[in-house]
């Protein structure tokens, strides 16, 4: 059996390259792979395309990657609160593709499920539908949205067993299980790594087939915050 547990992404340095599309789980910082993000900051790579609901919080998580200048484009649903991203966008140094949150989630789900795209009612008739194919189905208007796949997915879970089966915690689940299915290489950050057989099969949300590498988190929760230990 291949050992999926690694100390740091330095051990798999060769999978990271310039211009890659990286799917990053999390809703704000909840369910965000903070340790993996810290490790990506150490790599000499650039022009990344990030797919994530938002860009962490100012000064935390994905926002740090962006302020380091590694990010060329972000694809997600909500960047209004990221002041620096808004500024970078106005200055033309950051490309932003805005997608409704449900469309983003379904596009990633399709990407992982071998489906090329889908028709949705969301955003029909709005500025976000401009340039998108429209068709009528049973008398209602729909727009076509393409599936999203990544080169790499970096996700956060609660517990992994050594095979890579994953459980999640509370609302930190969010985009993580679907991103686990939608990238060539999937790296998960967890609180705890246990022996095979210790997880109740009924509680496993992400089956091991999707997971390539497991990293132990270096963050602990203190109240509302995640603090590096």
């Amino acid at each position: 059996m291949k050992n999926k547990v690694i100390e740091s992404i330095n051990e798999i340095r060769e999978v990271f390259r310039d211009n890659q599309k990286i799917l990053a789980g999390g809703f704000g910082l909840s369910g965000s792979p903070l340790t993996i993000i810290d490790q990506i900051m150490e790599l000499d790579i650039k022009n990344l395309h990030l797919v994530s609901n938002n860009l962490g919080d100012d000064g935390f998580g994905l926002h740090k990657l962006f302020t380091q200048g590694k990010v060329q484009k972000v694809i997600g649903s909500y960047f209004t609160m990221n002041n620096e991203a808004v500024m970078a966008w106005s200055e033309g140094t950051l490309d932003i593709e805005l997608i409704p949150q449900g469309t983003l989630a379904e596009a990633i789900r399709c990407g992982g499920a071998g489906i090329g795209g889908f028709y949705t009612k969301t955003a029909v008739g709005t500025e976000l539908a401009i340039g998108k194919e429209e068709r009528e189905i049973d008398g209602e208007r729909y727009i076509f949205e393409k599936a999203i796949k990544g080169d790499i997915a970096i996700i956060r879970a609660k517990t992994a067993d050594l095979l890579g089966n994953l459980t999640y915690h509370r609302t930190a689940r969010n985009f993580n299980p679907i991103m686990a299915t939608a990238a060539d290489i999937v790296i998960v950050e967890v609180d705890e790594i246990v022996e095979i057989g210790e997880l109740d099969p009924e509680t496993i949300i992400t089956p091991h087939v999707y997971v390539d590498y497991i990293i132990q988190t270096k963050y602990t929760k203190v109240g509302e915050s995640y603090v590096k230990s």
Partner: protein
Amino acid sequence: MSNLDVRNVIAKRIAQELKDRQVVNLGIGIPTLVISYLEDKEVYLQSENGLLGMGPPPLEDEIDADLVSAGKEPITLKKGATLFDSANSFVMIRGGHIDVAVLGVLQVSIKGEIANWAIPNQPILGVGGAMDLIAGAKKVICAGTLFTKNGEAKLVKELQYPISGLRQIDLFITEYAVFAFENGEVIIKEIIGDLTFEQLKERLNIPLRQEITNIYMN
């Protein structure tokens, strides 16, 4: 008049529209305040980041960074709560399984179209789940003050702000009145504040009909 501020007057009135056993998604801003006025109603709150059965804010020592609302505030789980991923959350929202979405709003047209995600000539960088809720919820109630800080009406003939979807909303609840949208007509269902129907008609300068069912006193 009560001593509630206008935001709470609106929130309290919206709470009256919600019924036992309904599944409800509350947006950010005034909609979030509705929670305080649910009293003993058994309403199931859905949060688009993956939760059905949201409970009140936790005590200081029970805060868990892994348990937050869509507004990223700490929350708790109610008895019977369930957790799911983002794709499933929007199956619920887009698929027509949410009874009521309560949304903040920038403008409402007399046709019941709404604008609530972007301001003209400013960067459009956030949409979140608003368009999905508008496309999929069974009923949409919009919450907002009737006038902007500059005194401009938010209920307008034509939207000047970018539209959020083609769907006609059901109710626009403000501090002055409850507006319903039926067959291209705006109908005042209830006067809440201290402007009369005639005064509202004059200030809004739109076709308006009155069909009072009961007068709400707070």
